[in-house]
């Protein structure tokens, strides 16, 4: 695979170059199950049988692949397939060799997408596999690799089970955040989900919101697009809408200690949605008296954004302007390993950053959000 993209082949040169001496906190790494059988060890017989017979029940047309075929198998970098034949992201030694070691990753935060726990229509099944996935992260990833951190995945539409799972996991002290999906039955700011925020705030854990999921709504307000190209872009729309929902419903007002992290939505969209919220809030204030301050102030104080997929304007100074508009302290580096649109920490930021600024984006900003024990 020597011909892929612009990154060195780490299997032949696994030594970090001088630029990567900076220790990196990667806020978005995707571990995978090598097969669904692997999760069986964490499921009761009943749910093992259910998984085998009934499988997922998601609001999508196909049972065994994504609604929009991706540009590469399993959404992954073509060089991310381990030589031992396992699936990309499923082999810890290869993840170390290809990503954690050469990129000098100090901590990596796991984001599990397998089994779409957020989107299961059968809520009992969803609750069973969310527990299994949360156990699997600790057992198969965090225990053998101390640099990795697990998230408490909870499907928010089973709010009661979500709260119980947060409480069960939080007392172990082994999880770094609570994860929900931007796509569910209702927008994230709606009151039915507030018990989850209450539990996360009580546990002192940030709320991570990773793009994806199937909430049953069309990807756009105008219907279903034809192409993956469009659907990929709607990830940014989903997090912009989720940010709007959380702020305009008054969630940061109600849960002032809760930190929100939007993951894998990029960040180029943030300034515009913030200006837009501020502008129109002025004319709709009577409708939302619980939003006491301009929306931008809540964004500036309560929300963080991971950087991948990094914006790539033709003019690098334009990226600089966006970073300054959002605030350099709000950005958390993420790679999205091993997916095809991976950002390599060495090359992703094509705009000049000082060493102090790099340190913030690649490391210390994450420390201000998360507690790394």
């Amino acid at each position, binding site marked *: 695979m020597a011909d892929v993209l612009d990154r060195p082949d780490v299997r032949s040169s696994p030594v970090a170059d001088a630029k990567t001496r900076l220790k990196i906190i990667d806020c978005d790494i995707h571990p995978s199950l090598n097969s669904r059988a692997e999760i069986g060890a964490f499921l009761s017989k009943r749910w093992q049988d259910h998984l085998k017979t009934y499988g997922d029940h998601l609001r999508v047309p196909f049972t065994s692949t994504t609604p929009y075929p991706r540009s590469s198998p399993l959404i992954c970098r073509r060089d991310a397939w381990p030589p031992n034949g396992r699936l990309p992201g499923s082999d810890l030694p290869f993840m170390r060799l290809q990503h954690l070691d050469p990129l000098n990753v100090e901590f990596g935060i796991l984001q599990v997408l397998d089994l779409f726990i957020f989107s299961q229509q059968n809520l009992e099944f969803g609750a069973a596999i969310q527990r299994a996935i949360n156990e699997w992260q600790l057992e198969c990833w965090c225990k053998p690799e101390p640099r990795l951190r697990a998230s408490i995945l909870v499907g928010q539409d089973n709010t009661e089970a979500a709260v119980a799972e947060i409480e069960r996991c939080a007392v172990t002290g082994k999880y770094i955040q609570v994860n929900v999906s931007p796509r569910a039955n209702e927008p994230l700011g709606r009151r039915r989900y507030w018990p989850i925020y209450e539990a996360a705030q009580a546990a002192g854990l940030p709320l991570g919101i990773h793009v994806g999921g199937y909430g049953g709504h069309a990807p756009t307000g105008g219907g279903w697009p*034809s192409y993956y190209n469009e659907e990929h872009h709607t990830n940014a729309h989903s997090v912009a809408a989720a940010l709007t929902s959380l702020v305009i*419903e008054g969630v940061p007002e109600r849960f002032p200690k809760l930190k929100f992290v939007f993951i894998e939505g990029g960040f180029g969209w943030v300034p515009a949605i913030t200006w837009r919220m501020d502008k129109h809030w002025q004319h709709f204030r009577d409708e939302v008296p619980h939003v006491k301050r301009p929306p931008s102030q809540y964004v500036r104080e309560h929300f963080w954004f991971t950087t991948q997929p990094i914006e790539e304007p033709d003019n690098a100074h334009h990226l600089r302007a966006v970073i300054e508009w959002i605030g350099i302290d709000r950005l958390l580096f993420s790679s999205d390993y091993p997916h095809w649109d991976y950002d390599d920490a060495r090359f992703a930021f094509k705009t000049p950053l000082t060493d102090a600024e790099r340190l913030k984006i690649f490391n210390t900003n994450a420390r201000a959000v998360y507690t790394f024990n």
Partner: protein
Amino acid sequence: MRIDCDIHPGLEGTRTTLLPYLDDHWKEQVVSRAIDGLDLTSYPPNLPLSCRSDWRPKTGKPGSDFDMLSAQVFDGFGASHAICNVLYGAQAVYDPYMAAAFCRAINDWIAAEWLARDPRLRASIVLPMQAPDLAVEEIERRAGDLRFVSALVLAQGETLLGRRHFWPVYAAAERHKLPLAIHSGSQYRMAPSSIGWPSYRLEYYIAEAQAHQAQLLSLILEGVFGKYPALKVVLMESGISWLPAFMWRANKTWKGVRVEVPWVERPPADIMRDHVRLTIQPFDTPPDQAGIDQLIDQIGSDRMLLFSSDYPHWQFDGCDPIPPGLPSSLIERMCSTNPLETFPRVQANS
């Protein structure tokens, strides 16, 4: 010359305003079934957004008073021409024949009672996109009247606008030099985004920007601009500050997965700069001059913005719809050169 590309004359109702413009069948239907009250949920008449308080007529719907509108838009804002975009529920009813009948009535009403009354007014042909063949018929029926300068659809409909079943509409629009005007507003079929139905109207209005983005991507990636190279699209009341970041991401994703759309042979942002125009109100930009300068620089074209007041919608205070801080060369372009390039029929009749 100063062309206001987005104003909204108000329409009282189906059984009042439109009744004389309906055929016998629909007259009977409208009266006997009391089919009325089709004000769009996107613009409830009493909403502050729908009418600035000092522009609210003593009686009647926002924008329904010709003298008030004329005094404000022409005398107040100094427009030489203004394009009427009627936002009434014809575009959102489910029955395609009813939709077509109401669109015909709206278009005939605006011609008879507004365009005929003031030679400075122009209008968009309101299209029943529920049935693309009937939308084509409506374009053909009204296109001979050069006072109609564009074809109007809502930003959120039943299917995305790039889909092939709409292409005959674009063929007709291109043939008659009518840009496709996509105006904020929804048929309320789908939630405004993939995360579901928001609680507040404020959220819904904020989300309009994303609806416009989704439509642009659809039109570009389905290949509409390759198929209809003379077609222009005007986003109306879309906001503008989302444009640069949207263009960057559209380009980046296209580079990554263009194998899926081989007919899109140029970066999407290049296609947008050639084919897509945006009206300037609401001017949802950064609050400071340096930020506005940055944003204009990022848009990277002085041909994309079109002057609009969005009268009587409440987007700005004071008497000047042109936001402070724009360079004079850009103001000149967005008030006359750009609108004339975009709506060539405006001048054909002046």
